[in-house]
């Protein structure tokens, strides 16, 4: 019942904050975001699940009751966590609280609506990671779009309406493609399944019970469904060439929404890829290993090159997410314990690091009212702590040892290099590693231009150090990144436990 408590607390908080007067909204929202945070940390420490939730493992915090019945299919209310979803739930609660904290300065109108939507977003995200029945999961998956649409559309930058609609339409069309793909599988399984539950479908698929659907044979059906679901999730991740909504959404979104978007929403895509495509249809993933790896490597290199070409700090961070998500895809297609585990770990690590960088850019922007690298220089002189945090975040991104990014990328490269599923794995890995060099290139360049050197920024307003309430979330994130980097086992142990079964079918390897 703890997951339900988390969701209920967020929803109650959202309703109360929504109706509260604007001047209390921020404090109320911080207050309402704390109990879910505490409960999720408790859930982390009391976690007693093992194995993969979809493949017959012991599910923690499970709730199971029948919801609907349609013909021969039941739809159940089935919630529960395993080693993959637990870290993501914790990530959601932590980032929501920090994003709400960081919203103090940038959000100066319609506060109660803003914070109400943030808490509603948190509830939906927890639902996405907790749901173990397709229809229930889809309800939360779509529900996430609604608060994010408003967050971008109301509080965003000058082109916010365009960005919000583009985000909404892109991801909604992707959802329908994915929905059709999944239900093709359910109908293809015919009488061998009696519900739309993820565990039942996954186990039936892995047991090879997929039949024909009309004139489409089982093999073609599985491949078609894999492609449909992959396309649906690829938009969310996003991978090249489906990434064009991302820079618009990110650049126009207000900082706290960018933090949630990069920190958690992108992970919904990779999480779903892992849960659906790579867990349910390993055979098809193997067939398509080379195209998927090519897409991953293109995302890594092209995303990084795009970031290199930007002069807007927020755009740099936005495009670098495309690059980082490419690593996740590469780790997943490797089908090794370290590859898939590292990919899952990267989801959490990147959530913290990109959240940190977006927040830092936001803090700088609040003070300077510009994000252009060329406009500023020597910011370290005026904002020493913020500049220090920026440097820390950038190095985490580049994979400095003892920071979360290092552990994640190391796992992914180790796993991908040893892959038996992906042909020419060492070649793909080597090319992907080159992405790190480009990352270092654009981040070092951006830092050098904007942070160091003599101070130069002509303004008619005072530029001073950031306020305490802006710095607290930044420092917290830096500490968390160092914690995960120096003790990756904090999450990696449970992740590894849950990913073992996924890789076992295809030979595995480390």
């Amino acid at each position, binding site marked *: 019942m703890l997951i339900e408590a988390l969701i209920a607390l967020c929803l109650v908080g959202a309703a109360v904050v*929504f*109706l509260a007067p604007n001047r209390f909204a921020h404090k109320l929202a911080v207050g309402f975001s704390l109990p879910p945070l505490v409960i999720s940390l408790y859930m982390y420490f009391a976690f007693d699940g093992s194995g993969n939730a979809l493949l017959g493992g012991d599910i923690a915090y499970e709730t199971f009751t*029948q*919801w*609907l*019945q*349609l*013909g021969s*299919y039941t739809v159940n*209310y089935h919630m529960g966590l395993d080693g993959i979803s637990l870290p993501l739930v914790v990530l959601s609660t932590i980032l929501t609280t920090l994003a709400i904290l960081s919203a103090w300065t940038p959000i100066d109108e*319609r506060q109660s*609506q803003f914070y109400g939507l943030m808490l509603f977003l948190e509830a939906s995200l927890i639902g996405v990671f907790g749901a173990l029945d397709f*229809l229930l999961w*889809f*309800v939360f998956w*779509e*529900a996430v*779009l*609604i608060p994010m649409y*408003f967050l971008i*559309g*109301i509080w965003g930058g000058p082109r*916010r*309406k365009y960005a*919000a*609609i583009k985000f*909404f*339409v892109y991801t*909604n*069309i992707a959802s*329908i493609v994915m929905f*059709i793909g999944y*239900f093709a599988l359910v*109908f293809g399984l015919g009488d061998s399944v009696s519900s739309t539950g993820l565990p039942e479908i996954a186990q039936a698929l892995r047991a090879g019970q997929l039949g024909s659907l*009309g004139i489409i044979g089982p093999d073609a059906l599985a491949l078609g469904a894999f492609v449909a679901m992959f396309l649906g999730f690829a938009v969310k991740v996003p991978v090249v060439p489906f990434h064009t909504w991302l820079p618009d959404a990110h650049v126009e979104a207000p900082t706290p929404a960018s933090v949630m978007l990069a920190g958690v929403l992108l992970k919904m895509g990779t999480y779903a890829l892992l849960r659906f495509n790579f867990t349910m249809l390993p055979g098809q993933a193997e067939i398509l290993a080379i195209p998927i790896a090519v897409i991953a490597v293109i995302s890594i290199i092209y995303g990084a090159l795009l970031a290199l070409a930007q002069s807007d700090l927020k755009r740099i961070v936005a495009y670098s997410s495309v690059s980082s998500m490419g690593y996740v895809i590469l780790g997943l297609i490797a089908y090794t314990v370290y590859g898939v585990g590292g990919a899952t770990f990267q989801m959490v690590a990147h959530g913290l690091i990109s959240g940190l960088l977006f927040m830092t850019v936001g803090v700088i922007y609040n003070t300077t009212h510009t994000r252009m690298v060329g406009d500023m220089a020597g910011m370290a002189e005026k904002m020493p702590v913020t500049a220090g945090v920026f440097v820390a975040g950038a190095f985490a991104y580049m994979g400095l040892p003892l920071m979360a990014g290092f552990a994640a990328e190391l796992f992914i490269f180790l796993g991908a290099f040893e892959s038996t599923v992906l042909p020419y794995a060492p070649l793909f890995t080597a090319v992907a590693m080159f992405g790190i060099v480009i990352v270092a290139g654009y981040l070092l360049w951006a830092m050098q231009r904007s942070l160091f050197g003599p101070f130069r920024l002509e303004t008619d307003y005072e530029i001073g150090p950031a306020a305490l309430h802006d710095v607290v979330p930044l420092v917290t994130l830096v500490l968390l990144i160092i914690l995960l980097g120096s003790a990756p086992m904090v999450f990696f142990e449970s992740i590894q436990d849950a990913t073992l079964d996924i890789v076992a079918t295809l030979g595995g390897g480390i």
Partner: protein
Amino acid sequence: MEHVSNWLLLAPAGAFVVSAMLLFVIDSFDPESKHDTLLAAVTTAGATVAMVVSAALLLSGVADPGVELFGGQLVVDGMSLIFTFIFGSVTALVGLASADYIEDLPHKAEYYLLVLLAATGMSLMASANSLAVVFVALELASLPSYALVAYLKTNRGSVEAALKYFLVGALSSSILAYGISLVYAATGSLLLPDVAAAAGEATDLYAGVFGVGILMVLAGFAFKTASVPFHFWAPEAYEGAPAPISAFLSSASKAAGFVVAFRVFVVAFPIDTVAASVDWVLAFQVLAVVTMTLGNFAAATQENVKRMLAYSSIGHAGYVLIALAAFSPGTEGLVLGSGMIHLLVYGFMNTGAFLFIALAEYWDVGRTFRDYNGLAKEAPVACVAMTVFMFSLAGLPVGGGFISKYYLFAGAVGAGFWWLALVGAVNSALSLFYYSRVVKAMWIDEPDEPRDIEGYPTALYAAVVTAAVVTVVLLPGILIFDNAAFDAAAALL
């Protein structure tokens, strides 16, 4: 005792009649009553009783299997109770909202009276088991509706809409009557089960007469449900009518058309036997595809919010037509039950959307999307409710509309009509475009000029918020009704 329980089965219709009569009495003692709260309260209370009693009867299973009354002229079964529940809930919401909407208008008692009489006619339509009762009940529901559309006598739009509605309605009633007479000529009976029994012989002997009769009956229902190509009265009527009446017509009246269509076609014209004469399933397939596509595309091009909703309600008629278009006797009534569930959810979300329009008309904010700009700043709660209606109508999982559409499309796929489901799903995805325009206007766009909203009408607000809460609750709560609906559909076969 047998008698008593039989009368109890008609209690929902009785509740409508009794409260209508009560309004008669009040109006004769106190003409042009100033106690408009009393009038609205009687209407809402009567409708609520009808709603609660039909839900209780439905869930207690008293009417399972169906009970025939008056020598088989009426039948009370699961389907009739589900639809009486829909009529009760819509009438209750409309009655509540009207208390504020017609505050300053004359002839209040007549207004409520006509609403209740129309609701009585609809609940009889739900139970009608003979073509004669179908026709009489249909007229009882239609005549008050014409008058209600013309209620804003001094408004040219309202009168024009009513005239159009009346002329087209009269024409289609006569087509229906002629169709019924041809069916009678071919089968020698008006009772639906007897028509079915004689259908085989009629198909052999009088295929032409029988087939034309069925097609004319179909045309009559297509008018009532505002299906393409008999839809052109609907946008005018819904736009010109007072907004609560638009809500009433587009939700309850449409559902009434569907319940009759469900019963008449499934019971009286068994597709196995009449297919040689006229394949009505094929006719409904064409109707469904054309109706949902045209309704959605027309809705997308509107600038007037009320007119957009009118076209969207045509689109939704197209979705429900899938229930008959994907009909095949062997499928245990899944699609048919899904159609009922969709109409039930639709009764709340569509009524709520039109009642929000009523609220906007009450505030005089204007009619177009542009006029709604920035409304959320002044009325956040009502705008949250409208957002729920819009997203639920579009099929996003914030309300019951997601589940009921899922049922319909999954039912169609299960019956082997995957292409119907695909057309429906594509239309549904496109519909998000025009529904989200309302949301965008309310929340994101800035108003052209500052406006002041005077007052927050309590009853109208209560109706809108109630409809929104029920729409959301129906997402998980549909489980209360889904089995009843599938059983009701299965019982019909």
